[in-house]
């Protein structure tokens, strides 16, 4: 057991967790933040992507104790004062989601991309999202959504 202190979506949190607790499970089971999804057990699908200190990571392959003292943003923390983030708006506008299961990870990844690259090309977007699997959309409208968000940010 270890005590960890985190800031999750702007809220300070302090909790005792078993050492082997995986971050995605910690978010889902301990904090009830079920927007972070788990789609695989080999760190391949990206459904679990969140931001730790502003950078996107796969929360299924990170231990909760390893992110002690960091700032975490999950999909639930992206909207501000009830207003969706431009990336969320763009996904809606461009129909970048169908079943919605890959969506939280996809959006969190895409937000990180635009932090580093203001106007990515189609190819750059596709390359960046290589770690996020979507079975529904064929990715086309996801790429369109990222471009749409880039034009607004």
């Amino acid at each position, binding site marked *: 057991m270890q005590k960890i202190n985190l800031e999750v979506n702007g809220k300070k949190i302090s909790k005792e967790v078993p050492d082997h607790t995986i971050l995605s499970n910690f978010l*889902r089971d301990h904090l009830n*933040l*079920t*927007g*972070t*999804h*788990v*789609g*695989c*057990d*080999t760190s*391949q*699908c990206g*459904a679990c992507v969140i931001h730790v200190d502003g950078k996107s990571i796969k929360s299924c392959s990170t231990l909760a104790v390893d992110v002690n003292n960091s700032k975490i943003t*999950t*999909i*639930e923390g*992206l*909207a501000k004062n009830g207003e*969706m983030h431009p990336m*969320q708006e763009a*996904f*809606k*506008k461009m*129909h970048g*989601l*169908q*079943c*919605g*299961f*890959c*969506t*939280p990870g996809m*959006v969190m990844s895409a937000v990180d991309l635009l932090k580093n690259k203001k106007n990515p090309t*189609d*190819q750059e*977007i*596709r*390359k960046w*999202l*290589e770690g*996020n*699997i*979507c*079975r*529904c*959309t*064929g*990715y*086309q*409208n*996801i*790429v369109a959504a990222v471009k749409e968000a880039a034009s607004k940010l």
Partner: protein
Amino acid sequence: MASLVGSRVERKEDKRFLTGKGRYTADINIANQTYAVFVRSPHARAKIKKVDVSKALKSSGVVGILTGEEIATDKIGGLIAGWAIRSEDGTEMKVPANPPLAKDVANFVGEPIAIVIADTLDEAKSASDLVKIDYKILKAVTNTAKTMSGETIHDGIDKNLCYDWLLGDREKVKEAFSKADKIIKVDLINNRLVPNAMEPRACVVDYNTASEEITLYTTSQNPHLSRLVMSAFGGVAPENKLRVVAPDVGGGFGSKINVYNEEIVCSWASKKIERPIKWVAERTESFLTDTHGRDHVTHAELAVTNDGKFLGFKNETIANLGAYARVFGTVTPTYLFGPCATGVYEIPAAYSNVKAVYTNTAPVDAYRGAGRPEATYTIERLVEKAAMELGIDRTELRMRNFPKTFPFKQTLVHTVDSGDYVAGLEKAKQMADYNNFESRRKESEAKGKLRGIGVSSYFEACGIAPSAAVMSLGCGVGLWESAEVRFNPTGQISVFTGAHSHGQSHQTTFAQIAADELGVPIENIDVVHGDTDKGTFGMGTYGSRSLTVGGIAIVNACKKIVAKGKRVAAKMLEVSEDEIEFKDGEFVALKSNKKKTIGEIAFACYVPGQRDEMKSPIPEGDEPGLIESSFFDPANFSFPAGSHICEVEIDPETGEVKVEKYTAVDDFGRIVNPMIVEGQVHGGIAQGIGQALHENTEYDETGQLITASYMDYTMPRADNFPEFNLGFTCTHATSNPLGVKGCGEAGAIASPPTVMNAVIDALGGQEISMPATAEKVWKACKNLKKSNSKAA
């Protein structure tokens, strides 16, 4: 009021998904819940000699462990095949028992043998390691083509043959072939695929000890059907004591049609332990136990004349059912496959012969397209090869054999109500700049690359219904759909549908339809689905049936609302009913121009009276309230069709295939929401390209699944695709009042042959099997070099 049908309405469901508020089964937790882990067979075929749970029972936190013995004692029934297929010789298909927990023998790796229930997931996992099972390992049968000569898997099922089915006329085909100038032949493997919805299967069961009601939250495409099967065949609980809820479901693609072992076992076990149970599949469990798709071995022939007329077609296929026959397992390679195998062509004589076999692999069932991708792959490979051998342009050859008038009585079963195949192919050629392809080929060659182009034209029979037709073919239930439209007194409307959305956007498209019919703002409408306690009944979503069957039930229920509204308005406005016109949400008395809005009518239906006046707005013969329902059973399937064109570029040094251009022109009849339809087509094409170039499910000879994770099974990623170029043509379906056709599966049906035809074209006509991986293509490039240098 502008019509919403036809416009790009943004989705009502998006906000919750985008803000992390979706509620999928694994997100649900119930107070005092336990966790389940299944002990599964590590062997593909083994006798279960003894299951010893004594040590595991003592492990910390264990609440209970149940096995096949207990489930047999409690007479809980097994999983079922939904369609009865008859062999050519008139005998009924052979189906083995499929108990929810294997008791005497395990028939595929991953088949569940025991359920371990504990207070925490970790405790359940630890305890499951302590369950000791003695097996006698038997020789597994895994190879589709060789199964009939393998050991018998199920007692009494000779040659592992479920049925040997024939559709068509062998004699006629023989005669047609005798008149041919040329016989084109192909030997094809339709590679086995894992559907891989991104949300793994899961269930949460809550047993209410007071009401004795079981609530099952589950990842299902058809909750009512699940309830019916679990009640009627599983005997888990009577239907009125079983509530099945399929909340947000993260994709299905056919893999969530079936009732699964875990759902039956957890429901039964929850009642036994009197506590809620939660089970969530790990991805490898999904790979091992979700129903798989395709897996055909086919030999097919097309008889042609020198000027390119098609005379006859035959198709001999072995279809792998896996270890057991499941809900759509037996119909997918027969009635969903055989009739479509002659494609969009006039071919006077044809037959399809399918032998469905059992193997020691996971059950095979419907996967996006179910039977129709296999059919289209067969005929479109043949046609492309015929064009090559006859020296006729591939599009010209197709056009020559397209039917030009509709309805088109297709060779084997269907009467296709509408279509214009020539227009579709012409449009695709133009959008793909087909005529200038050779110059692009030269450009690629100048870079040391090989370029190829491929075409496929398809039609499919979807909107799976009508009841009389499907039941005559062996379906165990009628495939209609139901809807209920509930107008609340204060004006909001709940539309209940028996269809289920797991990505298809019903909350939006069905609301568009209802808004148009009722003349109310779309914001006032909520589409409700996925809960057997809310909607009356439903057959669920698969076979591109939601709109063409379920959507029409909504239209019809709305029409009943309007009809009653008219009667009420007539009484309130003191005119006769035929003087009332309904338009844009208002009932207008034509002569006086007095009107009542539909909201006012709804209010009057619920609050039918007023102070100091003894008068009811409800006409004689009508009742208060404004709720109407409809069960729609269409007269025919719906027949979308289209032509797709693909260009690939191959690097002969690495064998890597790049999809350079992909053009799709489809005819889905009237389109309710173009944005959503485009999304469906994109997703389907991506899955089809996945089949053609990337995905493969591989069992070794002992029956171990080698591709059981995303490390080994190649899921297509964003950088595998170009931007798809979509176009539409439109001929209205005549079998439903909206003129709509199904669109969900078309992309996955048309794209595998389109891509493979392009790859084979680039490789100078060399046959190559799916998936066309870099390794296979690289080898083919070597052969090409050899034969080129010989020729030179």
